[in-house]
């Protein structure tokens, strides 16, 4: 229990740090982005919205930094992330809310699948060192050295095109209304195959390699020799003795590298114009939509923190030693 509380405290601290970082980022923007927005949308912005944006950008010069910080927190706690410039006058929270499920569906599912598959292959490669799986390692290294987005481009060039089963962009057939029905679900699945395969191919090798190395290290432990000496079956020794112990560092590695993985996979969305957070971030960057960028960064960070916490719970379940104290 103490372990979990420590972790929760750490994540709260990280969330605070991320939010504070988010508070300072727009204060480095040169010029007055709000003024340019107001002049672009003559008379269509309410006074409230302007005030909210000014708090967001720290443009109310008559208030001290500390008062601005408090006002910013107040706004955040009310769920007010400001107005998006690109999708004006939609609030940022609404824009993010519409794209979040897509990212969770694509990035979340593929990340977990790639971890499980990669770990399983790594168990095999580490246990049977020198077998054909070892020969795959250089190939997977090469695949993981390719930027995700480039692999996506190649996948589009090879598999998508006029008349192909795989669509090259979008999250669903244009003209369909997002709903859980017999038309929308198959279309959404069909659109997600190529991006998902891209992410899988390039993210899996890291897991294979780290699991292989842990298996090799664990295989020379005394308890493995004892298990062999007891005459347990090869399979039992490999899975219940070696893999189980080798898995622990891999799980904590998974938690730590989530931030990196999520950053990379967001790019796949850009290439496939997949309607998730990554594509949204791309559009926001293109049109200098600072409130949307900040909001997306905040949501991504918090999702990564939550995923980290879940990985910690998994670690707790796998390792009895953390439960003892």
């Amino acid at each position, binding site marked *: 229990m103490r372990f979990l509380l420590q972790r929760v405290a750490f994540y709260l601290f990280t969330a605070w740090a991320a939010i504070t*970082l988010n508070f300072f980022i727009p204060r480095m923007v040169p010029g007055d982005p709000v003024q340019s927005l107001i002049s672009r949308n003559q008379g269509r912005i309410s006074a409230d919205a302007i005030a909210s944006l000014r708090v967001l950008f720290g443009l109310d010069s008559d208030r001290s930094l500390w008062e601005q910080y408090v006002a910013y927190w107040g706004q955040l706690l009310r769920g007010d992330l400001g107005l998006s410039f690109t999708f004006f006058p939609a609030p940022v929270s609404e824009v993010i809310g519409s794209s979040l499920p897509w990212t969770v569906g694509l990035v979340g599912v593929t990340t977990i699948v790639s971890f499980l598959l990669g770990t399983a292959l790594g168990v095999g490669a580490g246990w049977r060192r020198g077998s054909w799986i070892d020969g795959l390692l250089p190939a997977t290294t090469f695949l993981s050295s390719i930027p995700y987005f480039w692999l996506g481009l190649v996948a589009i060039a090879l598999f998508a095109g006029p008349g192909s089963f795989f669509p090259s962009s979008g999250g669903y057939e244009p003209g369909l209304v997002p709903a859980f029905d017999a038309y929308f679900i198959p279309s959404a699945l069909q659109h997600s195959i190529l991006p998902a395969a891209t992410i899988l191919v390039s993210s899996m090798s890291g897991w294979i390699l780290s699991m292989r190395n842990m298996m090799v290290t664990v295989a020379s432990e005394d308890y493995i020799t004892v298990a062999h000496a007891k005459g347990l079956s090869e399979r039992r020794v490999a899975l219940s003795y070696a893999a189980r112990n080798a898995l*622990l560092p891999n799980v904590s590695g998974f938690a730590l590298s989530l931030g990196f993985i999520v950053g*990379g996979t967001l790019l796949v969305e850009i290439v496939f114009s997949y309607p998730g957070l990554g594509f949204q971030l791309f559009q926001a960057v293109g049109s200098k939509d600072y409130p949307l960028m900040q909001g997306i960064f905040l949501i991504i960070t918090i999702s990564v923190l939550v995923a980290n916490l879940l990985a910690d719970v998994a670690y707790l379940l796998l390792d009895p030693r953390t439960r003892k104290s």
Partner: protein
Amino acid sequence: MTLSPSSIEQVIPGQGAMAQPSARARRRRFRFVANGKAATGLAVLGVYVLLAVIGPWIAPYDPDARSADVLQAPSARHWFGTTHLGQDIFSQILVGARSVMVVGLTAGVLATILSILIGVTAGYLGGAADEGLSAVSNVFLVIPALPLIIIVTSLVDQASDTLVALIIGLTSWAWGARVLRAQTLSLRRRDYVEAARATGERTWRIIGFEILPNLTAIIASGFVGTVIFAVMSEITLAFIGVSSVSSWNWGTILFWAQGQQALAQGAWWWFVPAGLAIALLGTALALINFGIDEFVSPRLRTGGRTRIRTADGRTVAMRVGFTPVLAPNPAPVPMRRPADPTREDATS
């Protein structure tokens, strides 16, 4: 605030091959290169560095110069084909190599210095300083780096290479710091460090001359890892059009290819060379890292021929940590007399 152990800390053994300061070790210093993976990686990296230096001089065309050969497939005149403006893609790649290498290496050096300062300090000092520094590096580790880099860079109009390298370096030191801290923690109480302390060596000398040399392998692998990340980040930034699109690097080429719908036009030569150049560089760096890992921890080496013939003509595969047990031979074995207890005892 302690984090759960990572694979690297457990994979790297206490000292292993790195701590034998003798004349013998000096002569064996270049054994690292004898590792096939490391040698391949270093050779490829050397070619890239060479291209970064001489690339802009040997480029056959000016990468910006337009010509009448619009969107042509690779030919003898244009090895990698041309863009929609008739620019030579081979020249763009040669010129772009410099920017990629400069940003990658600058960011790598910056992040490595930061990680040494923070990681070794935290590990050596311990106590409150350790808690604080570890918390900071864990925060940087958990916050998704790429979105942060994208947002910070997009605040600046047309960010230059130097600025991009700075931003990447300042955000990507945390992993190295974490690993270095863990290893410093374990070195700190070793006998030779205690001995140095007992003879009255100054703290900076202990850190600089007793501890740092034993961290070389970890520092090197951290540096290589950061360079990979920095190159990928720089190319990503250029690809999504955040950093300056007027100076050439491989991401810029992909940016224009994507913007001009190179895929829809079937112009595969526009994006394939840049992507392969990136992948090859990434593979070379990863191979160097494997080489370092295997140099430090010989167990990780991919097993070569490990089959051994036994006296009775059978073959056994030797594996680390395994004691081969030969199953009873199917051929009839000469039976021992069961009614001879003394012999039975002697053989068991």
